[in-house]
């Protein structure tokens, strides 16, 4: 083959040229690397003039491959690929090598930098000679979208898309949409009533012509790929006919079985065995909790069935699997509360008047079990002093190392509510007060004015072991007041633990179903932490809300809307381009050993039972290349990263290490 390679070495002002002799590198490459017909250095290759130069060379010299030695391909690979494309060269015949981040910026020795730059250029040149033109594939995008999770982030995404005229399927695990926000009393820093701002959105979703809700349902299975996913939804048996039920609520009223509600009421209140979690639930169709229903457990009762005016109760209902076709998926699966019992020194579960933040949300909620009265567990006594403990299960390597982000503000909100509703003294025990968003610091200032006490120190323990008479019968919060440098013991009546946010217990499992991964902490991994925060590594799957990382309501809403915008963009365009970096199997050589089948986490390799060979489903392949490396017969090829290309790259990168080369180096 008669390759004609062009080599371009960027100065990047003095960023590269400062510690690499770029002129020498270009001169040397032109002389020493085979098939090189052009070798130039240039001040700023990414400038329009620089790109133009490459384009001109491609046309005039008939270049068959281009090597750009500049910055990270993560920054400018697209730029130079497009330049090649404009000049009629397949973009995959352009290879970038990173002289800036990997050489000039990490080193100050010019000779060493120049030497390494030569090796990198050599490797890229050897590689580009073996690169093949690749064409991206186009697939059509199904305009329907699946949203998983009916919390505020999922609701926002749903409404944005539905309002834009696109079909949305919304899946929610609980009997009603609304999520955690429905449990809150007030929202910081404005102190809006949570229900007042949430319930209109809920009913809008419930009534929207473009939305199909699946409540009390779970995502069962995902197959297919961007543009054309097939999903299975498990509609759990509600034992109430969705179409017949009018939501009148007589069944709940008459149900004789009371159960502690540890989901919506966080264990603070009761519900019936047939129930809707809260009055404004959407849909208003109740569910029967079979584990506690007297009919299901003892074969007696049937009161709900008897009182139902529309004969909607159906004890024989079974789980149902619904299959849907969607083009995109938005995961908005939310979070769960840290289990405060994991820190026994704070006494939750052992000391009656130690509360979690979710318990306290219900306690001060006007629709909660005490109608919003702040009283202790005895149900009547108002506390005279309340301690709010920050960072419970956050910022601690023994539980979760990350900051949950919302607890400082929620603690301030609690402080305000206690001061407003009682005469209690309120103490906040914080490590660092974090109030970084709009009007948050102002809210902190407001609480300072309202007389909340702030003690800087992580609480060591909450105990009922009194040492002095004034501690008798109290909960004692033991802490170092780090601003005084002194240990303090503060007796109080009530303690609120600000439990942190944790990923859902099944987040990982659910993520695997649609091919997205989790961080160490268990949050879904976005494609780029700054510049691509709602997309994921799997095309067509987006994330929104706390499932991607701790955030407050405004941020969750913004992310929901952002995910919807990304999906709307895909739908509006109508087609999607799939990267051609995928694996393929040469069926002739495949022995049918099936080793590769199990290696693929995306189930992109199928086995043809008849032909006894494996085959790559191109649309599902993400191009990681693990199967390529594992194939014992060596018949799997990874496009753009095949063995020949990588071997050539190794050859080039070690050009000065081979025994025969040492002689040459001496003479260079």
């Amino acid at each position, binding site marked *: 083959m008669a390759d004609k390679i062009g080599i371009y070495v960027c100065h990047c002002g003095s960023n590269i040229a400062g510690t690499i002799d770029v002129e020498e590198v270009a001169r040397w490459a032109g002389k020493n690397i085979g098939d090189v017909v052009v070798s130039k250095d240039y001040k700023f290759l990414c400038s329009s003039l620089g790109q133009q130069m490459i384009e001109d060379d491609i046309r005039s010299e008939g270049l068959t491959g281009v090597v750009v030695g500049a910055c990270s391909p993560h920054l400018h690979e697209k730029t130079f690929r497009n330049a090649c494309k404009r000049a009629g060269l397949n973009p995959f015949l352009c290879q970038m090598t990173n002289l800036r981040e990997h050489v000039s910026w990490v*080193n100050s020795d010019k000779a060493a930098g120049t030497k390494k730059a030569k090796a990198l250029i050599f490797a890229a040149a050897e590689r580009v000679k073996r690169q093949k033109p690749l064409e991206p594939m186009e697939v059509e995008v199904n305009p329907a979208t699946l949203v998983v999770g009916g919390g505020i982030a999922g609701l926002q995404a749903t409404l944005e898309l539905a309002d834009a005229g696109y079909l949305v399927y919304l899946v929610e695990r609980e009997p009603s949409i609304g999520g955690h926000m429905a449990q809150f009393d007030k929202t910081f820093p404005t102190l809006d009533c949570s229900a007042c701002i949430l319930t209109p959105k809920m009913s809008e979703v419930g009534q929207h012509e473009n939305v199909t809700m699946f409540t009390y349902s779970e995502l069962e299975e995902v197959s297919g790929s961007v543009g054309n996913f097939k999903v299975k939804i498990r509609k759990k048996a509600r034992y109430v006919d969705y179409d017949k039920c009018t939501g009148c609520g007589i069944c709940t009223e008459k149900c004789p079985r009371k159960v502690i509600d540890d989901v919506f009421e966080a264990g603070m209140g009761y519900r019936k065995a047939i129930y809707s979690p809260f009055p404004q639930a959407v849909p208003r169709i109740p569910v029967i909790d079979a584990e506690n229903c007297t009919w299901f457990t003892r074969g007696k009762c049937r009161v709900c069935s008897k009182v139902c005016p529309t004969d909607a109760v159906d004890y024989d209902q079974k789980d149902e699997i619904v299959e849907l076709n969607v083009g995109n998926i938005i995961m908005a699966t939310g979070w769960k509360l840290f289990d405060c019992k994991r820190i026994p020194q704070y006494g939750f579960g052992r000391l009656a008047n130690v509360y979690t933040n979710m318990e306290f949300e219900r306690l001060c909620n006007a629709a909660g079990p005490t109608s919003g009265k702040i009283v202790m567990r005895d149900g009547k006594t108002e506390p005279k002093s309340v301690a709010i403990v920050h960072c419970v299960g956050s910022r601690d390597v023994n539980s979760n190392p990350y900051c949950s982000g919302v607890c400082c503000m929620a603690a301030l909100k609690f402080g305000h509510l206690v001061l407003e509703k009682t005469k209690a003294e309120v103490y906040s025990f914080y490590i660092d007060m974090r109030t970084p968003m709009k009007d948050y610091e102002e809210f902190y200032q407001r609480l300072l004015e309202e007389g909340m006490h702030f003690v800087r120190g992580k609480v060591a323990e909450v105990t009922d072991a009194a040492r002095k008479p004034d501690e008798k019968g109290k909960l004692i919060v033991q802490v170092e007041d780090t601003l005084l440098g002194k240990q303090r013991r503060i007796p109080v009546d009530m303690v609120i633990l600000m439990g942190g946010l944790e990923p859902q217990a099944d987040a990982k499992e659910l993520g695997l179903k649609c091919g997205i*991964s989790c961080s160490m902490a268990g949050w879904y991994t976005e494609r780029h932490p700054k510049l691509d925060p709602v997309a994921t590594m799997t095309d067509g799957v987006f994330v929104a809300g706390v499932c991607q990382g701790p955030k407050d309501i405004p941020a969750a809403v913004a992310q929901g809307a952002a995910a919807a915008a990304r999906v709307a963009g895909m739908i509006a365009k109508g087609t999607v381009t799939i990267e051609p970096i995928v694996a393929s199997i040469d069926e002739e050589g495949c022995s049918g050993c099936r080793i590769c089948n199990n290696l693929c986490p995306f189930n992109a390799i199928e086995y043809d039972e008849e032909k006894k060979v494996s085959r790559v489903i191109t649309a599902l392949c993400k191009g990681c*290349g693990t199967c390529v490396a*594992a194939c*014992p017969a060596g018949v799997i090829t990874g496009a753009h990263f095949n063995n020949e290309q990588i071997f050539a790259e190794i050859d080039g990168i070690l050009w000065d290490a081979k025994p025969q080369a040492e002689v040459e180096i001496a003479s260079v």
Partner: protein
Amino acid sequence: MSNENFDPKIVGFFCNWCSYRAADLAGSARIKYPLNVRIIRVMCSGRVDPTFVLKALADGADGVMIAGCHPGECHYINQNYKAMRRYEMLKHTLTAMGVEPERVRLVWASAAEGRQLAEAIDKLVSDVRRLGPLHWPRNWDENGERQKALDDIVKEHEEAMEVPA
């Protein structure tokens, strides 16, 4: 021999998502570290075929660094675990062939761990410097024995890979 002036050549196979970006970050943060590791980008540490490593050593590298995302953070879900498994086998093979397994190292670096990556590179370079040059190419006979031995090793690996995943 004295290793003070020995400037080891190390080939790095870095995954596109975490470790290559960690190296980018080390650069953006102007963290200084030795230039001995020359990086080849692959999409995933799972792509690193043991033969790449053996070829690099046979071509004159004194060491190899394989870098991937942290376990549990792989952009391809869990392919780095496969890299980990291969790496364990590879170390046995290297030992059998008389190559100090310390020359080949698997490291995890998230895109945020530029400093940690620089430290790992620093450590590997100083360890390889301590071990001295490998001189593998010159240790092979030139009469075809070299190719045969390499083929044998590759074959052995292929057999090892047949352990069901």
